[in-house]
């Protein structure tokens, strides 16, 4: 068991290193030059050279890479090209918002997705099942920005129930601030859950259907266990494993979705910081953001791995 955990940990570190390396070289392979964006128009070649050396882009690429890794190991994410402040400061400013948005979307998807998938599987062919199948396929095809704008038009502009974009009213204090936070969170959260939930419930349903046909379920039923106990205790335990793995993997998509959601809803998270930094070719910020995201996804997967170890006795031994 310890060996299993250790090998997972090693794999996690390896994955992060690969993500960091790929990001680093990918950015530098872009056919665009960050210094060009600093001064549009009147820029002398001397000024451009000065900026290049200020950014450290004048050094050989391998040297830049070694330097960067060295900094990273010490926990230094560098300084933003454009904003002249440490990247860690920028990220810390934005990270809580993304954690709130993506984290609550993650939790809500699980909380709604699991019962929904189970109900669909148990009542196979019924209304819930058909609903889940239909919804699973359509929501997979939804494009977040379109959904987001639709939600804003209907619930924000026409009905006036929710604010148009932003994360909080900065003038509120105390309890009112929490209310404002939730009020602003509702629509972006809803659109993220909407696109995540369908595929998730559908996958759980498929697993569940399979498990419900297994011999041990039949035997459990024949031992006279209640239907409820068979479904929720025996079947779900096995069906939830792949679904949990899926959720870990989906975290990547969730974060990708957060970039779009945060942009449309003017939500001040890391996703929007990425969107802005791509336009500005702010390499240090992009690198820093991807490191954080890679670490988050890897950690989540590590967590699901360990969780499945707890849930699955076959791994435990």
């Amino acid at each position, binding site marked *: 068991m310890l060996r299993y955990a250790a090998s997972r940990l090693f794999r996690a570190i390896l994955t992060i290193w690969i993500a960091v390396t790929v990001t680093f070289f990918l950015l530098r392979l872009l*056919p665009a030059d960050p210094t060009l964006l600093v001064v549009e128009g009147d820029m002398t070649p001397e000024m451009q050279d000065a900026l290049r050396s200020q950014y450290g882009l004048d050094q050989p690429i391998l040297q830049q890479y070694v330097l960067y890794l060295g900094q990273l190991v010490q926990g230094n994410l560098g300084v933003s090209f454009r904003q002249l402040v440490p990247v860690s400061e920028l990220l810390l400013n934005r990270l809580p918002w993304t954690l709130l948005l993506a984290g609550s979307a*993650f939790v809500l998807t*699980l909380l709604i997705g699991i019962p929904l998938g189970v109900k669909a599987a148990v009542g196979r062919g019924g209304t819930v099942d058909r609903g889940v199948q239909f919804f699973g396929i359509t929501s997979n095809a939804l494009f977040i920005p379109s959904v987001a704008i639709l939600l804003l038009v209907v619930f924000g*502009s026409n009905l006036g129930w929710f604010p148009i*974009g932003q994360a909080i009213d900065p003038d509120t204090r105390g309890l009112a601030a929490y209310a404002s*936070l939730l009020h602003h969170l509702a629509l972006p959260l809803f659109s993220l859950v909407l696109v995540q939930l369908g595929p998730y419930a559908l996958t759980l349903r498929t697993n569940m259907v399979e498990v419900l046909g297994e011999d041990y379920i039949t035997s459990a039923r024949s031992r006279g266990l209640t239907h409820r106990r068979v479904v929720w205790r025996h079947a779900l335990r096995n069906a939830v494993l792949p679904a949990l793995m899926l959720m870990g993997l989906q975290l990547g998509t969730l974060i990708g979705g957060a970039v779009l959601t945060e942009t449309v809803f003017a939500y001040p998270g890391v996703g929007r910081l990425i969107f*802005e930094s791509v*336009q500005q070719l702010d390499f240090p910020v992009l690198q820093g953001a991807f490191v954080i995201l890679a670490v988050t996804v890897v950690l989540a997967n590590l967590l699901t791995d360990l969780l499945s170890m707890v849930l699955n006795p076959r791994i435990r031994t």
Partner: protein
Amino acid sequence: MKGTIGRIRKAGAALAVATMIAVTGCSLNESGDSTSGSGSTDGSGEQAGGATLRIGTTTDMENFNPLQSLSKTDSWILNATYPTLLRIDENAQKVPELAEEYTTEADGSVVVFHLRDDFEWSDGTPVTAKDVAFTAQAIMDYQLGNVAAKLTWVTGIEVRDDQTVAFTLSEPYAPFAEGLGFWMRIVPEHIFSQAGDLSQFANDTDWVGAGAYILDSATKGQRYTLKANENYPYAPEGGAAVETVEYVVYPDINTMILALRNGDIDLMGSPVPVSAVASLEGEENIEVETVGSLGFAHLTYNMQNPVLADQAVRQALSMVVDSKSIIETILQGDGQEMVGPISPVFADYDNTDLEAYPFDPEGARALLEGAGYTDANGDGILDDLAFEMVCDQSNANLTRVAEVVRDDAAEAGIQIDLACIERNTFLSRTRGGEYDIDLSQWGVFDNPMDQLRSTYLSSNPGGINYNLVADPELDALVNDAAVTADVDQFVEKIKGIDAYVHDQALLTPLYVENFRFAYRGDRFTGFDPSPSDLLGMVTGYSLSQVTTVD
């Protein structure tokens, strides 16, 4: 034991609580994620009776250092905070701001700015000629931003008294005062001289300004608040009606439009896309104002391409561009035609006697055949006449123009392959000269002389000679005009270059686009906009003139 679901539920609840705690830190809206200015009452949100005007912008603020080059949002906020010597009025003319006037001495090689004596920094220190000299010297020392290029000629700066500062130039340069006066944001010497390396100075807290509105607090990614400067000399009697200006970030323009409709913001700082103008104009509470441009859209031909180096080919290309119908259809009428490289915005350099190339694809083909181009393989395309045209994908108007021009060019036997690419790649390619035809839009030229120098001198001082033209005759014309101190002669020389470039067809101007800005007419009125989307409705001066509607 409650089983798996129970465990998952618990874990979920724990995660939710953890994220809430992570977000809130200690308590919402009272933590250290916003920085405040010195005079701040720390965001009580209450004003002493003055109105709050909220402006939407698509990008977050990046850089708070006014000496450096800035994004649009940065410029809007810092232009209001730090004064310039001159400003541009609604007719694209330079008018006094901090400087009452400027004079020249020694045949134009000494330029003297005479400052008003009633500008004051927000900490109470008067704004003097020393601040101007310090700012210019700092920009030269650290080679900061695009203003460094405006100071190329400066060999000496002399502070004659508190209100007088003189720049000595290596040679007379006619538009020096206008260029510097408009672009250089003056910073307080007593603050910036303490800041160390000014190329690394973030200036992201405790702002001391002297413009119409001074940045007061910043919550990154969300909101930037400016407070009216009570001492701003150009504010109306009794002070500006708008006491607080808030910039709110909406990265998506459609969301911003909804926010305006909903009354969450009062003004869109970014222009309304052509496609949304009609629907906003139909709204009862919303006014749409038209503002001119200081730039223009154009096709520019790479003279390093041996075929494009042929004047007949460039003239023929100019004849396949139907700018009238492009303005009618793509801009929905919201633009002006252009003939030569000088925009009609600069009325002093009137070039209405220049004759535009007619839209005539057949005539273009005849011109090319007359110049010896043939169609040997009979495919309808003249041999050698295949060009790649690059454009910036993010400019919706230009990508449509590209298709129209390609189709019309084919009629004249010219093959154009489109490469409308991602913006950063586009900039990099145009900078590197990797294109045959560059389809793009100039942002802001504040005067024609600077434009002609930057775009046509073979020495390419600003790096934007996208023709990559090296024409000794053109060089001589430009250099001669630059040192002409007599105003009438200067205008004639500029008009001469305009005509020369037009005849050479170094570029085919497409249009001067009008910008449309939307605001809540039911709440505010009286903006005094200046041309371009860099200035538009949101200059400090314009905002200080706004009045509320009851």
